[in-house]
């Protein structure tokens, strides 16, 4: 029952978010700020995670290559396909749900409990549109950039790990990366990313915006935002995979 109530409240929230901004100049300036807060500031963690996980994927695949019938370029192929299909769009989005989601929920939640949102409303500002829309647009615009960056670094990480351990040659690895490459997989990955970006920011904003109480409640809302947006990502991942790859 509470879930249904929350879904209804969340939908109503979105109708308030997606209205015309009062002043486009202010919206653009907030959008640029959010691109930096949500997007650019996430580059280091995405780079770190992608490089190391890419390396681990390559090493694990290489260590399982005991069957002599498997071609040597399989390591590159598996690194490429698991990175593009799942690791970069989904796992990195789950990591971003932790970083960006908690940040968004606590920022908006703190504004709620310190009456800053009431102050906006009293002034006649649509607080949801003013606060949440730039964040959602920033996530939709920048998450695909982050994911492409992640894919590149993950494959680079795989190459570095293989070179350091001398398990294969650059030529064989690159041959694997290019083998059976399906450009639609990039479209699939970026479509998922846009949906995940929207879910992370909108779900986290929902928990922050409707928080009641004080700092403890803001902390709880922040945790709830991360958990719920992660669940939303997993459910959306299943649905999108069915829709885009299997139908």
């Amino acid at each position, binding site marked *: 029952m509470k879930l249904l109530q929350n879904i209804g409240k969340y939908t109503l929230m979105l109708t308030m978010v997606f209205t015309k901004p*009062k*002043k486009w100049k*202010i919206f653009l300036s907030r959008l640029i700020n959010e691109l930096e807060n949500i997007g650019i500031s996430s580059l280091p963690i995405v780079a770190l995670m992608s490089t190391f996980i890419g390396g681990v994927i390559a090493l694990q695949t290489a260590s399982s290559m005991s069957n002599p019938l498997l071609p040597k370029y399989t390591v590159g192929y598996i690194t490429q396909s698991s990175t593009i299909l799942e690791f970069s769009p989904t796992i990195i989005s789950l990591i971003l749900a932790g970083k960006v989601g908690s940040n968004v929920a606590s920022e908006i939640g703190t504004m709620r409990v*310190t009456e800053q949102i*009431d*102050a906006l409303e*009293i*002034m*006649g500002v*649509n607080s949801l549109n003013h606060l949440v829309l730039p964040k959602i647009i920033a996530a939709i615009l920048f998450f695909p950039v982050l994911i492409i960056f992640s894919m590149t670094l993950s494959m680079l990480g795989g190459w570095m790990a293989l070179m350091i351990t001398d398990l294969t040659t650059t030529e064989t690895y690159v041959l694997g990366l290019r083998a059976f490459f399906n450009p639609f997989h990039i479209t699939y990955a970026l479509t998922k990313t846009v949906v995940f970006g929207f879910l992370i920011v909108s779900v986290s904003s929902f928990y922050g915006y409707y928080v009641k109480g004080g700092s403890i409640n803001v902390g709880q809302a922040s945790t709830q935002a991360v958990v719920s947006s992660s669940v939303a990502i997993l459910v959306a991942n299943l649905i999108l995979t069915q829709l885009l790859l299997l139908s």
Partner: protein
Amino acid sequence: MIEVKHVMKSFNGQQVLSDINHQFETGKVNLIIGQSGQGKSVLAKCIVGLYEVDEGQILFDGRNFTDMERFERSQIREEIGMLFQGVALFDSLTVEQNIMFPLTMFTNMTKGEMQKRVDFCLDRVNLSGRNKLFPAECSGGMQKRIGIARAIAMNPKYLFCDEPNSGLDPKTSIVIDGLIKDITAEYNMTTVVITHDMNSVIEIGQNILFIHQGKKWWSGDKDSILTTDNPEILSFVYASEFMKEIRSIMQEKRT
């Protein structure tokens, strides 16, 4: 003038406001007083539309705010300035940006005109030159004055102050009270102050509404509140030893 007519409000079945009727007059400092938990802040939030009333009407100079759509309400809200109990300054913006915020949002002023207005407002609250500070770098009293500067930036017709003296020392409280009184007279605003500070009542109370158990219990001015024999008001006004002593001195003088 703001008129409150038969306002009722309850939360989860518990009646918080019952049939409140009152007029907040233009050009005067109107106080809503009462003990904590009696419904003062709820009434103020109902008036500005942060809470929807269950029954009754709120009229801003004859305009029925209660029945308005969101867009129409926004227009009235542009005429409202509010100082919150916790000040509610935007902590990511500087003092200047805080005061400029409503101007950028709702006016077509040039940057120069906005700067002039910000400087004027800051000067009005005796904080000239503090433009580039962040709220966290300001004292409680300064933050309240910045809150007032932001509230008056748009030349509001209605000013609401929710416990403007909470957390301030008596001397700074008097400065804030004086500022509210002066600004009200200067701009002929309808000012509504929510307080339980007796100093404020005596300093600036021109039209006082006493709320008790969610009802309008008494109304009058600062002179009549000191002489009323209403037992609830007596227990509120003369709660402290200091006020009790003043009362006995006043009674001695009379006899």
